[in-house]
């Protein structure tokens, strides 16, 4: 004798239906298919390439689809020194990425300007675009970037998607 309800448990459809919330489902889709935009600007880009290759294998986390078009990318990985001249392009590419979008500042230079204290270098890419995860290192080990990616997945999984969409729609309606 067991308590049965249509939605709680039904032995006839067991194995075919998973009960979840819309938020959890959407976030699950999103966090396991983060398509990176590789903004490789200096030596960190070499480590980024290592992460993409078979030894460290970023595809274990669903992020192997490097997109060189910002329109198809979800997460910009800023790997390297951002000079003021390049800052214009970085900002422009970020603006071209569709929501939802995330940003990982990889290494000392992208996070703070690193050892380049000079007239030519932007002191941290967070001065022009919002950064979700900072990775320390000069350059960081590939494992460090994978750890950042896992932290980003964790962050994505906690996003209140429905609430955000509702707020966005309300704002649109008001405007």
């Amino acid at each position: 004798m067991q308590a049965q309800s249509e939605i709680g448990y039904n032995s006839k459809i067991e194995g075919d239906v998973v009960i979840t919330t819309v938020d959890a489902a959407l976030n699950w889709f999103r966090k396991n298919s983060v398509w990176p935009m590789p903004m490789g600007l200096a030596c960190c880009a070499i480590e980024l390439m290592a992460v993409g290759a078979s030894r460290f294998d970023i595809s274990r986390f669903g992020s192997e689809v490097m997109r060189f078009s910002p329109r198809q990318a979800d997460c910009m990985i800023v790997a390297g020194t951002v000079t003021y001249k390049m800052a214009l392009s970085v900002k422009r590419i970020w603006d071209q990425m569709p929501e939802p979008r995330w940003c990982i500042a990889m290494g000392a230079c992208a996070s703070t300007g690193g050892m380049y204290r000079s007239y030519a270098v932007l002191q941290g890419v967070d001065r022009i675009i919002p950064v979700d995860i900072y990775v320390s290192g000069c350059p960081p080990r590939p494992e460090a970037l994978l750890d950042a990616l896992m932290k980003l997945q964790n962050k994505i999984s906690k996003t209140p998607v429905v609430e955000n969409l509702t707020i966005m729609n309300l704002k649109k309606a008001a405007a």
Partner: protein
Amino acid sequence: MVLLKNLDLETKTRICELANIVTSQDAANKLKAKFGDLISELPIFRGELTVRLTDAEKITEVCLYAKNDLDFNYLVDITGIDNYGDDPRWTLVYHLRGLGHGCEVRIKTDVSEEKSKLPSVVSVWATANWHEREVYDMMGIHFRDHPDLRRILMWDGYPYFPLRKDFPLAGKDSELPGVAFTQVTPMAGGPFVTVAGGNSAMAREPRIRIPETDSIETMGRLERRKEIQEAHGHPKGPGPIERK
């Protein structure tokens, strides 16, 4: 070795001409013979030969001669020197190399600050295009008849010339509304900050520095080291314990 008999007449003649230049000194002599008083020779430093061109306006002619007749077919670099406080303020340095004969010559020429302008050599070597753009970007020296004299490293519209001696290392604020900006860089506490002077390598070494407390801290460390040395006869404290 190139076998002469296998080559066509034109190449043969060319190689024989080249045979006249075997050292940088030969090239310098030929330049002096051609341009006379305009070219003077500077002391040879570490086996490298430098000539000075008195009139910067003649740079294109000299370079054209060096390329066509002396076979300096490779322009290695053009650099600018800021002799801040002296007159003339600018020195332009052209590094020439002939890939055929393997000799190198450096041409230096001075330009005054009021003028800050000299002829371009893009018509001689196409590669001069980017070299001259870099000198213009960093120093603000103009090149006449350059086909495309824009900034190359800093963004278009940047108002300063950052490699001039009177430009601070940390940079200056600038704004191009809505498009681009630069900010003064915080130098204090940065990694790899060295200071000039000081009594010891310890006071000069590159490390994290906080300007307000740095000198006190360094002096304190040196004092402690001195005390230890006096007490133990060794800067690192008591030596290994002697076994009996």
